[in-house]
């Protein structure tokens, strides 16, 4: 089992969709929310994903394809 700590940033049109629930259901990824801020027009969630490496990768790819930005929770590592 692998763990990944990520931040999801949601566009307005997806605020009402249960995407985190669907992520867990469709990709067998356990989602553990640690911090979040959701308003009616945008939102972000910091969470830990736990599951098989491949399932996590596929789940993240699915989230990205839906228009959700997925970033490492530690921010960008590559510096100038």
């Amino acid at each position, binding site marked *: 089992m692998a763990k990944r*700590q990520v*931040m999801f*940033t949601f566009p307005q049109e997806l605020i009402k969709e249960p995407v985190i629930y669907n992520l867990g259901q469709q990709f067998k990824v356990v989602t553990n929310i*640690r*911090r979040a*801020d959701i308003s009616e027009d*945008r939102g*972000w969630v*910091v*969470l*830990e994903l736990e599951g098989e490496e491949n399932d996590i990768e596929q789940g993240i790819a699915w989230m990205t394809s839906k228009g959700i*930005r997925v*970033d*490492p*929770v*530690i*921010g*960008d*590592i*590559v*510096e*100038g």
Partner: protein
Amino acid sequence: MSYARALRCRKCGREYPLGPLSLCDFCLSPLEVSYDYQSMAKALNREKIAKGPPSMWRYSDLLSVESEAVDLGTSFTPLIKADNLGRELGLDQLYIKNDCLNPTYSFKDRPVSVAVTKAREFGFDTVACASTGNLAASVAAHAAKANMKAYVFVPSNVEPGKLVGAAIYNPVLVTVDGSYDDVNRLCNKLVERYNWGFINVNLRPYYAEGSKTLAYEVAEQLGWRAPDCVVSPAASGLSFTRIWKGLDELAMLGLIEPVNTHMYVTQAAGSSPIVNAFQTGTLHVHPVEPNTIAKSIAIGNPADGYYALMIARQSGGGACAVTDEEVIAGMKLLAETEGIFAEAAAGVVIGALKKLAGSGVIKRNELTVAFITGAGPRTQEILSDIVQPLAVRPVIESVEEVLGISA
């Protein structure tokens, strides 16, 4: 000796033992080094600091290091009264902190010196980073000095010329066939898999501390006082927050008067998530896709963006972004007025300073320090069009004709 006592979560306040760790296990927020300031205050005074070496290590009591530092001779860089530039901008008390003059030509030597020293203390024999420029050079150089192995990861599309500044120190240079985001993701996984000291990941709390010395030096060089205004570039936001922390600590220790410094964060318009958040009034720094010539500060998802934003707000400071054209103009203005050839991040600072002074946000009589964090020659390709020499034949007549002069 060090007065560091724990790593502390910046969000929820949970504490962890001092070790190679950067995130709070509970809320996944960044950790920072906390100190026993009471004991530190008893042991520290201006005279003791002044007797220390002319380097950042005169402030070793305020850092988190327990052993002899891995030091290339970093810091105590000049704080210059910039009268020519000040005249151009309408500022009577403008100072430039010229951190181009560090061993690998950028301020990164400060945080990296601390991080590599801590890496050695923690028993790592290998350090690593992902960088296309200043950080790579500094990590490779410090690893060479410390007889440690260094891995430097870069996206494969980076021009080879940009890597010379790191390659000369002979690190293991690895190009990654993928985008900037791919390198980020890969490095995240490497941190988990290998027992390396990843400079800006698992060593980040210590790496961060090195930047506080920018503030200590400026305060000491100003005769033990804080500036009225600080104008500094931000990439991840880390150094910006540590300049503030450094000033705040000096005041807490009674070494300077209470701080009333207005902190101005500056970014290139093509990569300005912190400035965007400041201007829209949100509390969340939304990531962006960087697109600017100021590559050394082009970070779309800044780890300390929220904290930089809060400091700019709470200090009564501000935020300013400038276009790439304004960046170039800022670089030229700094060179033409003060004789300092600095990198594009300095163009961001000077371009923003011009706007802030021009609009009256920063006032003429305020003591303002602009932080110049890296030297220009490493990225001189962005200025190639300024080379327009006048061509003459090797005879006096030709010189006089072309230059329009006569004896």
